[in-house]
């Protein structure tokens, strides 16, 4: 991993993975390491970081601008900025950029815009891409490390922007804009006819105001469709370029590993460069010779003797750890067997959560060592 962080040709590192596996932590740890060890001017774009981690990074407000992170060792000549994605504000910025102020005000006031800019599934992914595109265009940093939104599936990050732009210039919207327009006897008119029924029904069910608002929203956005799509495509191309490295994060659990395998397959199809897999929060024992069965039997024997209770419990602790390690290795092998060429690094589960700069340094060191760094 150090090789990637040090490589001046690498300008973007994207951390992806299923929900809750440690994407944000990994992104922050990699960015810190790039700044401190490799002297790179680095910015990390975080999305919904845990509150205490955000505080350690100096992110007290959601203001969409990179802020310098304190307590970063700058001896190597690098520095670290951090920012937190403000989805709604990013969306507003995009609108402002593509339309004149009066129109923008209209859009902002529309209840559909308000609903969509804060809740539409995929908006967060799209806005993360958008922000990444903006940061890259500014060209102020040697390295941009991007976290990805919490979603069930890592693939959402790749698919959501396309889905959103397809949606925004899709045929449904056009039909809705002009439900009464088409005539003729084609299949299309049949469709349009039932659509007329639909929009009348929607009108009855939801009230006429809703349709008016929706049409207003669509008409207002109409002028920006081209812009939306173009930008999404541009950013997508950056992701395919050799200057980008994807780091896939997974926890050694069945769902996360399955997700990681899908994602790795998809990256291969899209010709996007997968730099490696981070197996995060793994458990290992330094005493693999003493297996769970023997420890449990010994614990039971000590228990019966009525003495050595503490030792018996210590053996049980060891047995549980060993069982977990064995289970995790079996699960992880599903990925490593399927993608033997993908470099893998394991990061141990820390006894407590990671939310300060020192904790990030520990993770950063673990991410860049072959084999396992000690926990804690």
């Amino acid at each position, binding site marked *: 991993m150090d090789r990637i962080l040090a490589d001046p040709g690498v300008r973007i590192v994207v951390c992806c993975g299923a929900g809750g596996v440690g994407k944000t932590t990994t992104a922050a740890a990699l960015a810190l390491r790039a700044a401190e060890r490799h002297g790179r001017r680095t910015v990390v774009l975080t999305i919904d970081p845990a509150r205490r981690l955000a505080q350690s990074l100096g992110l007290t407000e959601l203001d969409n601008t990179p802020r310098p992170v304190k307590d970063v060792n700058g001896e190597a000549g690098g520095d670290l900025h951090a920012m937190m994605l403000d989805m709604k504000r990013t969306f507003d910025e995009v609108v402002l950029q593509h339309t004149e102020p009066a129109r923008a005000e209209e859009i902002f006031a529309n209840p559909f815009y308000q609903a969509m800019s804060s809740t539409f599934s995929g908006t967060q992914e799209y806005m993360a891409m958008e922000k990444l595109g903006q940061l890259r265009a500014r060209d102020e940093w040697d390295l941009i490390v991007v976290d990805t939104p919490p979603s069930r599936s890592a693939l959402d990050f790749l698919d959501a922007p396309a889905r959103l732009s397809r949606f925004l210039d899709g045929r449904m919207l056009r039909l809705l804009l002009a439900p009464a327009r088409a005539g003729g006897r084609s299949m299309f008119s049949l469709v349009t006819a039932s659509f007329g029924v639909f929009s009348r029904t929607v009108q009855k069910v939801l009230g006429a105001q809703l349709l008016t608002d929706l049409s207003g929203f669509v008409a207002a956005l109409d002028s920006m469709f081209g812009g939306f799509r173009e930008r999404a495509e541009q950013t997508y191309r950056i992701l395919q370029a050799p200057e980008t490295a994807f780091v896939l994060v997974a926890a050694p659990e069945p769902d996360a590993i399955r997700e990681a395998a899908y994602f790795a397959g998809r990256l291969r199809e899209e010709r996007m460069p997968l730099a490696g897999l981070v197996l995060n929060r793994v458990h290992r024992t330094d005493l693999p010779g003493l297996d769970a069965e023997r420890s449990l039997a010994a614990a039971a024997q000590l228990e019966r003797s009525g003495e050595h209770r503490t030792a018996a419990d210590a053996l049980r602790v060891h047995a549980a750890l060993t069982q977990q390690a064995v289970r995790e290795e079996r699960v992880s092998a599903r990925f490593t067997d399927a993608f033997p060429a993908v470099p893998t690094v394991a990061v141990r589960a820390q006894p407590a*959560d990671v939310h300060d700069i020192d904790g990030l340094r520990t993770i950063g060191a673990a991410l860049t060592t072959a084999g396992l760094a000690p926990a804690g």
Partner: protein
Amino acid sequence: MSGEASIGQVHPAWPARLHVVTGKGGTGKTTVAAALALALASGGRRTLLAEVEGRQGLAQLFEVPPLPYAERPIAAAAGGGEVRALAVDAEEALLEYLDLFYRLGAAGRALRKLGAIDFATTIAPGLRDVLLTGKVKESTTRTVDRRRAYHAVVLDAPPTGRIGRFLNVTAETARLAKMGPIKTQSEGVAALLRSPMTAVHVVTLLEEMPVQETVDAIGELTALGIPVGRVIVNGARPPLLAGAKPTRAELRRGLAAAGLPSDQATVATLQAEAKEYLTRRALEESLRAELTELGRPVVELPLLPGGVDRAGLATLAETLLTA
């Protein structure tokens, strides 16, 4: 069905009729919802277990083919009860609803082909939520021969991050639909969700983020006037090494007594593992205290070493009833 267990009675420990199960992603919402549905069905009762996110989590859990939009028996509960399952789908719910009012028939099917319904519920997520919760309300309050169709309904709900918005249906629809039957429907749902018929249970693990989200969600639900039920701690492990930090001498003697190698490396490693375990446990204790402070009843469910299978679900169901 015996008189005592006749539908219409509510379990004394779980008095609500609609149990909404939320929690941070991956904490065990689906597992706990299933266990609760089994628990409440025991002794000859009938419950409905519903999911709303289109993920077929219930089918996976019970290892059956994907569930249709229909209430189907999925498991038998202890003592002759029955759990039925339903995957609520917004599109189907909308069509069902429109049919009720407008007799759409073939036009409805054409609309679906076109993706119109998906479109309508995508552009207005609040609309989708009203349809989903509307269906849940319908099954909760449905009567057959003047008796409730279900003794209880358990909903495998969206995660904590979305639960407030999901359940706060009136506010969400009011933003978009200012009149019409959808608005009326959402008001009915809102009334049910704010009544003692409903309880929202929050599942958590003894980890920082899930606990934080539990605290936040309970604050949000309370502010919305939606009744919070229990906090359910999932994956709890039996405490070991109660307070005691093992010394090397203690470990060496114990290992020797058990006939295991007691060399320095072994002893040191065991001690380090014990120390890490105790750090972890101290953290869990403080999280547990934080949960207790919320003032809601807390139930703990054990970590099942063999994973969640039918026997495991039965164990969890029993724990829920006795807790």
